[in-house]
């Protein structure tokens, strides 16, 4: 008991997760060090990128460990306030934020720049968990879906206004915790269908798609011609699908910015552009591909060293890993992430309280979205969406927000025997 008392704050913490966390941060530091131009690595200093990242990692670790000092119940209790606070910050950024590269996403506090969208993730996760934990809705009714939609939608909309499509997209990750809590699998299928139709709409003429959709629907109706309900819903889905096709075309022309359009076209292979928007992706793929099986070795990557990949320390950090550590290094990194994600899901499932479980799922799925979109983008299977690789990419806001996200869950997990 004495022993337990002394270790009260760190009792029952899942140290394996912490270890993976530290490993990923270390990988980040090494690769940021490798991706700065050689003349800057000659002298170590805290003004360099990797010097700053080291500060972020150390402060992040202190931040994470101090989160473990809190009482886990506080997060449940204060979740509406945290959520409200992040919403306020998101609104504030639209007014007083600094415009960087067309996005009004940053609030400058002295020399430090804060990105509220990063913090909105755990704010939203907490409130969603609290809602589900308190009311235990099974998402069979419209009302609960609406409420959950509102909780996720409000910050999403505000982020879209910045506009920061990449960060907004991450909020779709909340579909998975809701699915786990009972949301119909059809929502996921519809979501998947929408993505498939979206891509298909660019590759195949719209009228052919309409013919295909109506043919499938017709056959389906013919097979179930006795069941009126199925006929009705099939017709409804078909009409929506066709309407959606036209909506895509209109939205594509009117809503998306030209650079976003060209990114999508590049990814789908509809156009090639070696100098403009396609430059990042091509150079990143070249860097990764040139790593081959074992990589060129630490600090030996020519593409990395001579600055061929733009944004190399932030969004395109994976290209450094790919070039210098090769397929083996990439597999290790992806393996670490997978281990972390699967473990988080397992941890979430062992929670007694729904609050902790929903929050755990949210953390896992947000991380998953980031990893998938970021790596997918650097190897050209997803259009360029500027979101960081969790814990590895350079940047304080993103590192700290992932630290907070993760360590809150670790704290909740360590309290899993108690009541939250």
């Amino acid at each position, binding site marked *: 008991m004495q022993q337990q008392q002394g270790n009260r704050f760190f009792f029952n913490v899942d140290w394996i997760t912490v270890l993976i966390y530290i490993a990923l941060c270390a990988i980040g530091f090494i690769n940021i060090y490798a991706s700065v131009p050689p003349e800057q690595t000659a002298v170590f200093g805290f003004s360099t990128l990797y010097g700053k990242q080291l500060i972020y990692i150390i402060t992040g670790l202190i931040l994470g460990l101090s989160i473990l000092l809190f009482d886990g119940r506080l997060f449940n209790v204060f979740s509406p306030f945290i959520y409200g606070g992040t919403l306020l910050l998101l609104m504030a950024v639209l007014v007083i934020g600094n415009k960087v590269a067309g996005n009004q996403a940053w609030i400058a506090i002295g020399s430090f720049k804060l990105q509220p969208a990063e913090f909105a993730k755990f704010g939203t996760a907490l409130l969603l968990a609290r809602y589900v934990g308190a009311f235990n809705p099974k998402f069979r009714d419209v009302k609960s879906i609406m409420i959950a939609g509102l909780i996720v939608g409000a910050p999403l909309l505000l982020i879209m206004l910045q506009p920061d499509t990449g960060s907004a997209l991450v909020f779709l990750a909340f579909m998975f915790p809701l699915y786990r809590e*009972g949301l119909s699998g059809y929502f996921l299928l519809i979501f998947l269908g929408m993505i498939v139709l979206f891509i298909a709409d660019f590759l195949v003429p719209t009228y052919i798609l309409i013919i295909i959709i109506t043919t499938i629907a017709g056959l389906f109706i013919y097979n179930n011609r006795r069941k009126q309900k199925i006929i009705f819903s099939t017709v409804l889905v078909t009409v929506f699908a066709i309407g959606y096709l036209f909506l895509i075309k209109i939205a594509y022309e009117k809503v998306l910015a030209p650079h976003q359009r060209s990114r999508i076209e590049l990814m789908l292979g509809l156009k090639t552009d070696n100098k403009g928007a396609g430059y990042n992706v091509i150079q990143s793929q070249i860097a990764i591909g040139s790593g081959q099986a074992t990589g060129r070795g630490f600090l030996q990557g020519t593409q990395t060293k001579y600055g061929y990949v733009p944004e190399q320390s932030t969004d395109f950090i994976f290209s450094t890993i790919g070039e210098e550590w090769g397929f083996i290094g990439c597999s290790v990194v992806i393996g670490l992430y997978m281990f972390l994600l699967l473990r988080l899901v397992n941890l979430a499932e062992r929670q007694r309280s729904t609050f902790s479980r929903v929050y755990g799922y949210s953390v896992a799925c947000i991380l998953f979205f980031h990893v998938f979109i970021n790596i997918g983008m650097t190897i050209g299977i997803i259009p360029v969406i500027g979101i960081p690789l969790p814990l590895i990419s350079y940047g304080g806001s993103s590192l700290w927000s992932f630290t907070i996200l993760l360590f809150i869950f670790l704290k909740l997990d360590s309290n899993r025997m108690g009541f939250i």
Partner: protein
Amino acid sequence: MDQLFNRKYIVQGLFIAIALILLGKLFYIQIISDAAFVSAESNVLRKIYKYPARGAILDRNMKVIVQNEPVYDLMVTPNEVKPFDTLALAQALDITFEDVRKNLKKARGKSSYQATPFLKQISVQSYARLQETLYRFPGFRTQDRTIRHYPDSVGGQLFGYVKEVSPTDIEKSEGFYKPGDYKGKSGLEFSYEETLRGEKGVINTVYDAHNTPQGSYADGKYDVNAVSGERLISGIDMRIQKLGEELMTNKVGAIVAIEPATGEILSLVSSPGYDPNLLVGRNQGNNYMEFIVGNPYRPSLVRPIMGYYPPGSSFKPVDALIGLQEGVIDPNTTFFCPHYYQAGNRKIKCEHFDGSISLRRGIARSCNTYFCYVFQKLITKNGMKNQRQTYQEWRDKVAKFGFGSKLDIDMPYERKGYFYTADHYDKIYGKRWGYTNVISQAIGQGEITATPLQMANAMAIIANRGYYIKPHLIKGIGDKNLVKKEYVVKNYVGVDAKHFEPVIDGMQDAVNTSWGTAILSRIPDVVLCGKTGTVQNPHGKNHSVFIGFAPRDNPKIAIAVIVENAGYGSTYAAPIASYMIEKYLKGSVSSGRAAQVEWMKNQNLLPLLVDKTKKIKLTKADSLLLKKADSAKRIKDSLRIKSATIKQTVTTKPKELKTALTDKPVIQK
């Protein structure tokens, strides 16, 4: 644990599925495909090529006849250019202000990252001026290269020319040539390209994304030094090559001289020729259009190896040799020449009156009748019914002398000439034809054509008494003086050595007796054996032909000279041959004949150009008039050369007498 617990597996399954997709794509771009690796190398590596010096070519006296000259290209890398004093650059380069802007724009159009030529082959003066001020023009640098230089300004067709490679060359070379490389396009430069070109050197430099050089790649491990091309020694004697081209100025035709014992070509003149230096450097394209394409006498036709001429009377020695070998005649056989030969209903005229004529005199006097009889005997020796078969056998024997096939000279575009097989005549005459149908071949007319090279080679065979070595221009490759295997093999023609002497007797008489056909071409102190030919040319005036070799014993030079549309062989071709031979054997033409040489150089024998598209159909009367005028001119020509020679004899009488004296014992021999 509710039923929804199972959804955990769906979520985890999704995670794993996506991870596998990512790994799959990574596996593809990192391990399966090496496209990215190649692109990465080309991102950072710039190869700077070092051009090797092309190999030099020497003549048989080790005089340099093809060499290199340094030139400088001004290169520009457009995106390294900063605003500069355009006027100062224009002045330094001797070009206009507009040119500077135009060239810069052109370079930009090609590539803004790579150095492209701004101005090619700038003068040495400009180069010196620029070196002092180049620092004021960032983005510009000079690149040195070598271009060809031909010190004697002769042998355009012989040496060929070197030109920047074309896209097809690059494609065909399977990666050897890169844009901007140079390659031999014709002549020796073409045939010995692989020996002459040497090996390019390369320096690998690493560049960053801003195109700033970051030093040598892998400490220069993959850098290669340029290796100069190998030296060639040719059999050409530049002294007679030069003399030959001078003699052939304003004449259309060819000269080929061969050293019989080795097959080395001593001189290969194609006229009209051109100065090979015209096809070097900045004005190559313009000069090519102006002097080669623009010349109506077609210098691009390398006449010694591509020109087709009926051998004419110069074919008669071959007839005689085959006749002797086959036993249809012996050195004492005589035929009666009634001033013509009757072949069926055709008459083949002779230009002399001799009555009964022997072999030796027949060759010396170029008796058509004699050789028609020889041919008749050859073709009918197996009976009248077997003429077709016998003709084919005869043709194969003559073909051994090199007629009708390529001699594999080390120059491109050699042609083989026409020399038809029996099958060809079957097509024309059906199965029933005989010697009368093909009799014109007996005197080297009609269907048979040969290149001057083949004619000179036939002379080399007679000089060697029965064999030849394939004629070739290069006798030594590189420092080890290697020579191609096929150029040392003796090719025997199947005629015994003893049969040559009677024929050579006749050829000696042709030049060295008062009744020969080439008596104006005697060389003091040298026994020249030869044969004139006046080749009937259906397209215009007769071609003047001379073939021969000298000296009679242990011959040093065999020669064929053809002057198109010049009339009798004795008038132009024979003297030209004699000057060439004299120069080669003695080092100079004896001063007694020097004036003749000058006279010959000044003769303009270029045929009138007929615009074939506007040709008016001639009436019989017109053509008769033309023929008359032509023959009048022919007579005038021969008078003129005679008068020139006579004039010469007056001015240098003592020497002429001497030569006449030395000639005598030779004739009696």
